[in-house]
């Protein structure tokens, strides 16, 4: 399973999964992956290879790394320095043992790195086995009637059935108009700031009055789309902070928000 030659190194541009639009292939996400690739490329055995001998090849590969990503580069440099240390130790005669147990306590850097490589390879290979397993498509599915129905209706099924009536489109348009009524024209233009915190406080206040609120009910009289959007984001923030739990049983259905204070206190305690 050795990767294709030559070794190419690149990093994805996106830091967050939701921002990443970049599909990466054949890239070495990590210094151990790179070192292992160099060993496998030369058809050497991890258990016996003299790691110091790879310092040159590793440095050469390192030189090709995009230096724009220094944060990631540092981990490569750490392994590189270990390789150079191993190589140096192999070249120089060992200092005589000064105190009792002095050298015994000191771990051999080559064995240490080899151990890490073996451990890394074990999980990398396990990941590949899992990946192959996943690729067989022998997935398990639980019953999720609403999702299956929605998928079926959206035409994900091979046979989508009869075409949709144009009236459905008109109805959908009317429904979306009802969802957020157009805001009346503002009498004058003025700067305003709606903060997440402000909207979070509104939700917290509502939750003090009732153990469970429905987001659509809370926003019933709100005509401003920005307020609606910020309130929705505030709910997500609260859920992220474990202050509330949100639930929606079907697409476009009511979004219920319940307080999780007891849970939060238990966590803190």
């Amino acid at each position: 399973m050795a990767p294709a030659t030559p070794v190419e190194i690149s990093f994805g541009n996106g830091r967050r999964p939701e921002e990443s639009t970049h599909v990466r292939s054949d890239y070495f996400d990590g210094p151990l992956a790179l070192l292992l690739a160099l060993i496998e490329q030369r058809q050497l055995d991890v258990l016996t290879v003299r790691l110091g001998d790879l310092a040159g090849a590793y440095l050469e590969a390192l030189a090709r790394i995009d230096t724009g990503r220094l944060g990631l580069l540092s981990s490569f440099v750490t392994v590189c320095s270990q390789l150079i240390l191993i190589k140096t130790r192999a070249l120089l005669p060992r200092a005589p043992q000064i105190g009792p147990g002095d050298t015994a306590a000191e771990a051999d850097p080559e064995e240490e790195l080899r151990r890490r490589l073996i451990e890394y390879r074990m999980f990398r290979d396990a990941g590949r086995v899992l990946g192959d397993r996943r690729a067989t498509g022998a997935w398990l599915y639980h019953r999720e009637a609403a999702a299956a129905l929605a998928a079926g209706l959206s035409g994900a099924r091979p046979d989508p059935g009869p075409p949709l009536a144009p009236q459905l489109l008109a109805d959908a348009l009317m429904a979306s108009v009802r969802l957020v009524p157009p805001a009346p024209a503002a009498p004058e233009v003025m700067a305003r700031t709606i903060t997440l915190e402000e909207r979070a406080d509104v939700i917290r206040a509502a939750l003090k009055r009732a153990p469970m609120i429905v987001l659509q009910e809370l926003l019933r009289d709100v005509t401003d789309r920005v307020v609606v959007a910020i309130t929705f984001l505030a709910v997500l923030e609260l859920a992220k902070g474990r202050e509330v739990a949100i639930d929606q049983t079907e697409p476009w259905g009511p979004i219920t928000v319940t307080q999780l204070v007891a849970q939060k206190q238990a966590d803190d305690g």
Partner: protein
Amino acid sequence: MVEEFPESRPPVEPPPGELSAAQLEALLFVAERPLARKEIASLAGVTVEDVDALLGDLEMTLHERGLRLLSAGEHVQLVTAPQAGRLIARYIGADGGRLSPAALETLAIVAYRQPVTRAVIERIRGVDSDYVLRSLLHRRLVVEQGRADAVGRPFLYGTGFDFLERFGLTSLDELPPLEPEAALRLDE
């Protein structure tokens, strides 16, 4: 993002005090979420041991059919059999997307070493794994499993139901064994 499933409301009627294999199968069929063993026991008014025994029977019976019993920790759920996977995927239009080698090796560390902290993952991989771990959490292949009793109380990560489903495993016991030679050497 700790995997939590809501408990059902306490039933108004007193529990019947008995549970048959057929009833258990029917209950799991209707439930569209994983059920805790003790929740089933309290619904039926039987002991958790009774539920466990019936679940064992059900698992055996299901092997002939298109369904399997998925079990992760305390929770169980009825799922479709692996051999039906491609057909169901065609029906619901499921597309799992690609998992990068980095995501797969991180997932392997979490799956085999769980519960595990990010620090342990990063020690094994030798590289910052925040991005890849976040992506796995986002896809619900990895879930938070509380916090470690260490300085800073770091999050512990493990795999949940979605992981088992996407990899066609009915429990973690079915994970393919790790390379024995490497595992042995690391134990030295």
